[in-house]
């Protein structure tokens, strides 16, 4: 339904051109949930914004490639056509619910604006639909809440309102850019649950951007791992969590706390900083931080190769080599822990 082909989003800044998204391709089917994971600065948020062309300006963004929605390339369509797609076919919710609602307008008016921007309905009908939507997303006493201003809502409630706004045009795809990052843990679970129930009810495809692997495990069908503006591994949840063949993904997983871990399996942070998106390392972009890097990694910039059905990774190590290196590393780590 939505297919991204060779998308490149370059940003002009004073310090040079930032290759925030560099040749990314993937597709999503109706009713599916794809999670895009990566550290901050990996380009995942720019990717999400590029799909709807909502990147802030200034600076200037230059998306290239194809974003095919039902056969049409969204990078080529007219401003008017793009507006029709926004909110109506593809919707988006953002990271910070506290700042994503306009503080000077009533919540009801902002919701009704979304409804009326795509359907020529009377104000009365729009209000009725607004009430339905607020009930759908679990806002108690919606009749009264319609007349409240954003500052009278809690963070979790605001995110619910934003989801209601996103659903107003009955979209086929919902892009959520770290929708739970700014919320308390208990509220996070509620919002994820809400998204799942909405998907079940309307068959909406969901693209969820997150850095939280816990969220991924809960909700994803498929996972894309991004590093330095590129996809470095993609596959099903179990491919990524149990059969990963990419050192970056493995490092991400190693840096997570686990209930079953003992003293020898301490949390291991990834060394160094995410790669600079202007002046990137030679060869493999992850090479400066990779525990398994060899001389060859300085030369070769690996592309995605198939490791199993629907499982792709970008690393010059074969599955076997990777497995051996991993074992060696863990043995050494254990030795270190004993000492």
């Amino acid at each position: 339904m939505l297919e991204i082909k060779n998308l490149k989003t370059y940003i002009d800044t004073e310090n040079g051109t930032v290759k925030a998204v560099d040749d990314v391709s993937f597709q999503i089917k109706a009713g599916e949930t794809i999670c895009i994971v990566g550290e901050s600065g990996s380009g995942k948020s720019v990717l999400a914004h590029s799909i709807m062309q909502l990147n802030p300006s200034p600076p200037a963004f230059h998306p290239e490639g194809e974003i095919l929605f039902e056969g049409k390339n969204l990078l080529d369509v007219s401003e008017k056509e793009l507006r029709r797609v926004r909110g109506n076919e593809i919707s988006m919710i953002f990271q910070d619910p506290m700042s994503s609602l306009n503080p000077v307008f009533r919540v009801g008016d902002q919701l009704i604006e979304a409804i009326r921007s795509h359907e020529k309905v009377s104000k009365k009908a729009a209000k009725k639909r607004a009430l339905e939507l607020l009930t759908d997303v679990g806002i108690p006493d919606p009749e009264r809440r319609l007349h409240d201003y954003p500052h009278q809502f809690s963070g979790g409630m605001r995110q619910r309102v934003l989801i209601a706004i996103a659903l107003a045009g009955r979209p086929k795809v919902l892009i959520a850019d770290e929708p739970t990052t700014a919320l308390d843990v208990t509220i996070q679970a509620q919002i994820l649950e809400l998204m799942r129930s909405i998907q079940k009810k309307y068959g909406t495809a969901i693209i969820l951007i997150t850095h939280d692997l816990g969220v991924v495990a809960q909700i994803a069908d498929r996972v894309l791992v991004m590093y330095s503006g590129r996809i470095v591994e993609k596959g099903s949840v179990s491919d990524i969590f149990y059969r990963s063949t990419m050192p970056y993904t493995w490092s991400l997983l190693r840096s997570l706390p686990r209930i079953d871990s003992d003293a020898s399996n301490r949390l291991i942070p990834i060394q160094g900083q995410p790669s600079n998106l202007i002046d990137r390392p030679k060869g493999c972009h992850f090479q400066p931080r990779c525990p398994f890097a060899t001389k060859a990694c300085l030369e070769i910039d690996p592309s995605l190769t198939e490791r199993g059905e629907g499982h792709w990774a970008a690393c010059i190590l074969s599955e076997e080599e990777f497995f051996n290196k991993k074992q060696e590393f863990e043995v050494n780590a254990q030795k270190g822990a004993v000492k």
Partner: protein
Amino acid sequence: MLKKKRNLVALSILLLLTIATITADVWLPVSPGFIDAAQRLLPPSGTFWFGTDHFGRDVFALTVVAARVSLTVGFTVAVLATILGTITGLIAGYYKKADFIIMRVIDGMLAFPSLLLALALVAALGGSVTNIIIALTFSFWPVMTRIVRSAVLQINSVQYIEAAKTSGVSDPVVISKYVLPNVLSPIIVQGTFIFAKAILAEAALSFLGVGVDPSTPTWGNMLQESQIYISIAPWISIFPGLAIVVTVLALNMLGDGLRDSFDPHARKNKKRKQHFVKTKIAS
């Protein structure tokens, strides 16, 4: 890059002007006081770049020499207002009890348009260079106090300041070592703007005839005198005015440029670059 160049241009203009006016006696071909009745109201030419005035004096020489008073007043006011404003702002931002009193006084002073306050003070004190400096300092420092205070309030809640406070570091040390360095950038920016505003205000006071003694050449005094001749000898009015515009514009550009380079957004990019350099070395 472009902004850096702009700052550099602005700074060069100011330095050049300062040096030119200090060393004027050495290099000026004609003394600014030299009166030649035969050469009254001559238009700009090869000999008299800016023309001559109604006494036959060289307008160029006068404009260069007049910069002395204007720059001295502007600079002194900027420095004094910055010092006073920084001290009161630091105290107000740091001590809650003093804050109430200081800010009420500041609010009261800000109830006067700054030129009006300066006028009233000059009216009371009389129009010497010292009194004008006092009057302008008094009109401009309240703004500095406000800016420093709000910067201090912002930095005050930052954790390392709290940490320093709770670990028993004395107040003067916390203020001078932790707070002041962190509020320095808005102070420098505002100080530059005060410099610019003080030059404009001094010129306005002199122009209104309540400023520096009319016999002292300042840009404001020159413009005041030139008024009657504006239709027959416009150059006497144009060039001193342009001198003000160029000086003040350079200062405003510098202030604007400094604000941009102190901007946290701009800094973030730089930081990222530094980190990258570090990882490169580490690998």
